[in-house]
């Protein structure tokens, strides 16, 4: 699962749907890999707009990276040379950093979701559906 996805996935439990605590999930015991991916600056700029930067910082911290800038880089332009360095950093973080194994915990209901072989398991036991 790409780092990018952590910025969108939230707890699936019904009772958590309206809770603001059910996003982002808390990441622990995670094994990461860097996997080379095609660099697509237009896509990054497209997604940047809808990123919740505080969640990016929080999840990066869960995964052991404390060095993200406190505010979201903005008005990046895929055609501008001066923006390439930041866009490449974002690419490395969001698209190339992947979680292969780990746990995600909902901060509202404490339900734990497991990631195995890069696939998060969101199947719920009947009493939580």
């Amino acid at each position, binding site marked *: 699962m790409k780092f990018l996805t952590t910025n969108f996935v939230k707890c699936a439990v019904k009772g958590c749907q309206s809770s603001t605590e059910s996003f982002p999930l808390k990441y622990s015991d995670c094994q990461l890999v860097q996997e080379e991916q095609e660099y697509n600056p*237009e896509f990054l700029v497209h997604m940047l707009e809808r990123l919740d930067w505080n969640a990016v910082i929080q999840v990066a911290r869960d995964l052991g990276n404390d060095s993200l800038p406190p505010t979201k880089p903005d008005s990046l332009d895929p055609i501008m040379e001066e923006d390439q360095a930041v866009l490449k950093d974002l690419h490395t973080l969001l698209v190339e950093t992947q979680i292969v194994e780990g746990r995600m915990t909902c901060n509202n209901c404490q339900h734990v979701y497991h990631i195995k072989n890069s696939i998060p398991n969101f199947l719920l036991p009947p009493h939580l559906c």
Partner: protein
Amino acid sequence: MSRPEELAPPEVFYNDTESFKYTSSTRVQHIQAKMTLRALELLNLEKEQPHFLLDLGCGSGLSGEILTEEGYNWIGMDISPSMLATGLDRDVEGDLFLSDLGNGVPFRAGTFDAAISISAIQWLCNADTAGVDPKKRLLCFFNTLYSSLRRGGKFVAQFYPMNDSQTEAILGAAKVAGFGGGLIIDDPDSKRHKKYYLVLTAGLSERTVNLTGATMEAPVMNKKVNKKLLRKMESGKDFINRKKETMKRRGKKVALDSKFTGRKRRPRF
């Protein structure tokens, strides 16, 4: 031949053997590719612009591979571990989620530009165990899908209804969740090739679905042509070139035209 939906629950039906058989059949690959392309045609997304899509009941990624080929980034969800494992083996580009669509789509509001589903949602009409209410599951699916889409985001689903009441249940739940749109039937007179496509919009869209040559069972909003839309219709290359020219005129350096600039860089991570 009986329908797979009547034989077993999806995660049981699509076991290792069936997943392999399904995915490696060139006939299946061909049909799924064709239907995915048709779904994309109906979605009518701005070409040359990036889009983030959700593939519901993605299976082993036959539909997702087409999304990748067409330049889209996507996330897939499926209930069958074997299908997903086959997808991993095929090195699909999208992130894969093991989950049951009937329990909803676990993404925050406005995550996706659009969603597709190919040959999957008829499964939601089944009650595989006692105490399961298909109506509730359909509603949960459409409600959470609606919220995970950007306003104006579209959803096209090819599905195999067993009978009219399944189609009605699906359309009804979509409507209750707030979707606008309806049903498109391709090749309605051919028993073999007849295909059902649910074509929905979550809220108002600047650009509607592509209904060329289609007959609808429910009206979809009219196409509004405005300046913004015309801009969007220019090709990506034209757009970048136009923008680069403007930038150059303003004395700015643009990528590819120069390797180095004297400007200060933004803070790196």
